[in-house]
């Protein structure tokens, strides 16, 4: 029956409704809450002021990532090194105090499990398919790669979830992004999501939860799915989802916080039932031909400003809408680019490989495959590789990837958000360009005046080698 056919999103939503109000808004139960140092201090402060406890500390996990420096955290004698910036140090100290004070498990900056919240959650089996997952960070959409309904929240909502383990939400509209066919060789999940955002725009998913569908996603690795869902917010969508399948289950099995024994079997049975029913209706549907996707790069200051690496900087007049023309002029001025300029001739001075979008082991392998036996170009002044977690770092070192990066002239850092956002010492100098595997090319995002070009890990590695934005397929 068509009217009972439900989407993946609707099934997860329905399973989490505590109460439905007459106006359609629902009190929704939250299964997993990730907490970091930047968006939580005011929430804990408010709880303390009202004398309210955390309702389910056992569904909450705290880990510092945003403003933690990515340089060594201990000295040679094993002592913790102080954080130079007093404000960052204070925020980190607050989390370190608040988590145990409210009974929340805390992963310390010096623990091997420490990392970016969106890398740690899946890696620890804390993030699960079918779960509602929130964090005071918009890239929480990332966990949708496991088939979780995951979205970013503000600090007042962090407080609300801590106190009540629920959120008051209106149901989102559903949007299907269907990708047909196979991706061309040398095209990564990052290129695909940049292409999708370029196509639907930064407001294309507003009010919607996107489900990514099609063979490409079925064949994609879990880490690739996390990359795709991570940037759903850049298309305006609150969350992105990919149906959990055998790959998802294999990825999660035996991870520390994943269900065990009979729980595991029950979980797999339920997870398997979550896929969108045949005949289920989406409020909006977009179809993308995979064959059209090329290694992609951004030219402007919005993630929708995407062109294939073989393309040129567009002319502002080429946009239909006057406001977009104006925005494009401002972007080009900020980026120091001129219309018609070839993207693959744009010189870069900095390379950043990392962030919750692209800092997992497959990302590092892709970058290392390009850098092996090569060195960075002389005009590349600063190039860093920042693993997403201590466990990713260990794995990379076991595979010798760190040595590939170091031999190529790149720096190998400690885990954290790093140069994705200008909150910690890793910043791009004003006026300089960075080929970055992160998720936002906003004005000042990587530091005041910094010029960001979003690319995949392989493309960032290629840019490091040639010193300009480069089609990685020329190097393989």
């Amino acid at each position, binding site marked *: 029956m068509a009217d009972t056919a439900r989407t993946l999103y609707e099934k997860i939503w329905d399973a989490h409704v505590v109460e439905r*109000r007459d106006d359609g808004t629902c009190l929704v139960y939250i299964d997993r809450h990730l907490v970091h140092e930047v968006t939580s201090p*005011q929430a804990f402060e408010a709880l303390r002021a009202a004398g309210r406890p955390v309702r389910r500390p056992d569904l909450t996990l705290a880990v510092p990532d945003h403003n933690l420096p990515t340089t060594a955290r201990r000295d040679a004698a094993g002592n913790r090194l102080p954080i130079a910036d007093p404000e960052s140090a204070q925020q980190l100290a607050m989390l370190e105090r608040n988590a145990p004070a409210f009974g929340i498990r805390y992963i310390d900056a010096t623990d091997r499990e420490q990392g970016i919240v969106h890398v740690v959650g899946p890696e620890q089996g804390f993030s699960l398919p079918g779960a509602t997952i929130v964090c005071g960070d918009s890239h929480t959409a990332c966990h949708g790669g496991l088939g979780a309904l995951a979205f970013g929240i503000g*600090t007042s909502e962090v407080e609300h979830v801590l*106190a009540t383990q629920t959120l008051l939400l209106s149901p989102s509209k559903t949007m299907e992004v269907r990708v047909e066919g196979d991706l061309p060789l040398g095209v990564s999940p990052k290129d695909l999501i940049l292409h999708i955002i370029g196509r639907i725009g930064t407001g294309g998913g*507003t009010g919607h939860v996107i489900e990514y569908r099609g063979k490409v996603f079925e064949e994609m690795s879990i880490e690739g799915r996390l990359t795709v869902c991570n940037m759903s917010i850049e298309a305006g969508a609150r969350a992105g989802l990919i149906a959990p399948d055998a790959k998802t289950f294999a990825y999660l099995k035996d991870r520390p*916080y994943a269900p065990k024994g009979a*729980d595991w079997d029950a979980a797999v049975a*339920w997870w398997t039932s979550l896929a969108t029913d045949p005949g289920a209706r989406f409020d909006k549907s977009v179809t993308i031909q995979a064959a059209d996707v090329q290694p992609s790069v951004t030219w402007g200051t919005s993630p929708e400003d995407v062109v294939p690496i073989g393309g040129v900087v567009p002319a502002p007049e080429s946009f239909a809408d006057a406001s977009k023309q104006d925005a494009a002029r401002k972007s080009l001025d900020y980026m120091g680019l001129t219309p018609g300029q070839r993207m693959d001739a744009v010189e870069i001075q900095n390379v950043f490989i990392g962030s919750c979008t692209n800092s997992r082991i497959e990302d590092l392998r892709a970058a290392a495959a390009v850098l092996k036996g090569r060195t960075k170009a002389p005009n590349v002044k600063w190039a860093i590789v920042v693993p997403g977690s201590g466990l990713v770092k260990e794995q990379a070192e076991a595979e010798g990837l760190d040595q590939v990066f170091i031999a190529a002239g790149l720096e190998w850092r400690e885990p954290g958000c790093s140069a994705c956002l200008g909150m910690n010492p890793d910043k791009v100098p004003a006026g300089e360009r960075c080929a970055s595997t992160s998720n936002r090319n906003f004005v*000042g995002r990587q530091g005041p005046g910094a010029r960001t070009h979003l690319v995949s890990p392989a493309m960032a590695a290629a840019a490091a080698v040639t010193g300009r934005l480069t089609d990685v397929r020329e190097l393989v």
Partner: protein
Amino acid sequence: MEPVRTIEGKAYPFGRKNVDTDVIIPAQWLKTISREGLGKGCFESVRQEPGNVFDDPAYQGASIVIAGDNFGCGSSREHAAWALLDMGVRAVIAPSYSDIFSGNAFKNGILAVVLPQEAVDRLLEVAKTDPIHIDLESQTVTTPFQDRFTFEIDPFRKHCLINGLDEVGLTLARDSAIAAYEDRARASLPFLARGIDQAA
């Protein structure tokens, strides 16, 4: 939270589309542990543009920002709402907002008024010389020139704003419903309901 009924005064005729929260408050301002004092960093990069509306003496003390589509997109930082409040902004008027920003604005008593682009264009014009009046009770935006635009708002949000209600307190009053859900979940979704202490 302070009740919100009417907001009247000068408005910044900003008009820009896709204003992200990195523009509203850049990351270097996020290291604070309080909600106050962020007004100094609000629209920092815009304020470097000569002739920007935020430093124009004509709009000093404005309590309303008029913007284009998709205001507050990008990062979830509630600091964007706190920064606007700290610079004296009590309402934003735009054709659309990011989902997260509209939630953050509401939770801080900032009225995020949705009006069609034509109405926004008209208000951008009016704001150059005259004040704007927003009345939440009647859901209208009016000007001294007989303009009258009505806007939609979620009835629950309206109720909370007008009465200055604390949402956490309201939800805590539903404790029995939450506990009943947890009982159901323990039976039907035990693998999600179990805390991480038991899973590990």
